[in-house]
């Protein structure tokens, strides 16, 4: 982990229903290069909204996001170029059901990075081998289990050689016995030095892998610290209440 910031979010606000609902209410957070940040909090706390704001899937009502020093909330910024460098993994995988696994992985590198199909396929196969799914390259998403789908979704994002990976509750839709295989892939990714922002309910993963844990509630960051501090000695009552329920 370096001291260089890759993402700096300042004063993020996200209102729905014309201001009736404040999903984000002034969130300021920065992510360092190589850092693994885990965001936890009760449902409705705005943690997913915060994550989705980072690559502008959710456009913040107010506030600023700098990605590699560039203000991506500026209307003149071509967000598509910056999204290429921010991989995202969704709760419901969102693989493309009409394409094979290999096609899922090579579509973006071929169309956006202008890689040759053979080059993209070579990279995809290397990644598939790393997650133990090389033999499923020709399969369609509907032929895979949930855990396999999520591993594919992770390597699909990796095919774009992203600078940061965003995980939006990647294990929440999985059967319990499949959570482990996905967490393993995420752990090995973290060990390789990938910058990661992870929204999850997996406290074990947070404790073991996080460099920093952010606890959110009611659209605000309540507390952030190294995992030992958050889990063993939380300072805020709100954090204590939440952890008492989930641990």
């Amino acid at each position, binding site marked *: 982990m370096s001291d260089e910031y890759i993402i700096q979010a300042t004063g993020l606000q996200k209102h729905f229903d014309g201001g009736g609902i404040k999903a984000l209410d002034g969130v300021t957070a920065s992510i360092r290069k190589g850092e693994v940040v885990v965001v936890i909090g009760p449902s409705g706390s705005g943690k997913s909204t915060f994550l989705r704001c980072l*690559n502008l*899937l959710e*456009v913040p009502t107010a506030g600023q996001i700098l990605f590699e020093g560039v203000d991506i909330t500026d*209307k003149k910024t071509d967000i*598509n*170029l910056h*999204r*290429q460098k*921010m*991989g*995202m993994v*969704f709760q*419901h995988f*969102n*693989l*493309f*059901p*009409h394409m094979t696994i290999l096609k899922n992985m090579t*579509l*973006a590198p071929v*169309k*956006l990075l202008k890689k040759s199909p053979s080059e993209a396929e070579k990279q995809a196969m290397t990644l598939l081998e790393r997650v133990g799914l090389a033999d499923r390259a020709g399969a*369609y998403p*509907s*032929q895979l289990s949930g855990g396999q789908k999520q591993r594919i979704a992770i390597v*699909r*994002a990796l095919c*774009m050689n992203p600078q940061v990976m965003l995980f939006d509750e990647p294990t929440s839709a999985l059967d319990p016995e499949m959570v482990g295989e996905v967490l393993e892939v995420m752990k090995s990714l973290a060990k390789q030095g990938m910058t990661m922002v992870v929204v999850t309910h997996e406290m074990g993963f947070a404790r073991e892998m996080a460099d920093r844990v952010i606890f959110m509630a009611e659209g605000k960051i309540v507390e952030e610290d190294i995992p030992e501090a958050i889990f063993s000695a939380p300072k805020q009552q709100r954090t204590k209440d939440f952890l008492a329920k989930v641990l």
Partner: protein
Amino acid sequence: MRPSASQNWLLDAPDWIQNGPQWLNDIGYDIYKSFIFDNRYQMYLKGLGNTLLLTFLALLIGVLLGVVVSLIRVSWDKNHTEMHGPGKMALGFLNGVARVYLTVIRGTPMVVQLMIMYFVVFATSRNKIMVGALSFGINSGAYVAEIIRGGIMSIDQGQMEAGRSLGFGYVSTMRYIILPQAFKATLPTLANEFIVLLKETAVAGYVGLADITYAGNIIGGNCYDYLFPLLMSALIYLVLVMFFTFLVGRLERRLRNSER
């Protein structure tokens, strides 16, 4: 007072019919004058050719128009709250045009649209096939647009988000990810629309376009007997529809297999 077919009939018919019972004789004569005399079968063939040509051209125009119109409608519905400036105005204008188009085309009878196109808009053109294809295509496009719009809306929002998160723009995501799935989802309905279109071209005779129905009608009039000519027209449509239904069924199965 019989048409001249009656003289040739006795010369051309085989002996076993001529010498057969009266009812066989009558049917033989009816068939003869409906299909053989004066090479009338060629009129059905020509009508078949015209109907097919008209339907395929109209289908082409209809699908192109339908995709464009549905994309305008969907893009506006999903994005206009977050758009600003001239882009919003342009899309809003196109959306308005699309809505007027859908309302007018779906709110007026096909025959009237066809006659307006042929006798008013393209009054100087005698190219019945082109004017017909344009009229039927514009009409079909309105229905295709709503079918495809339904297909696009049925695709999970996560597909768009996945495409965008990889760095694809809105248009590319539509093209590579949403539309292929929407097409697949709506294929049975689109095929049904195609079959409806095929049968709907039967009104082309209103502007003198010699299609299958027109052939049956004219021949029936010429031989003062509509039974066999109209049955033949109906039979041709039926065979066409059954054939295309069969093709679509095969296509559907192949698409389905690709996901298993």
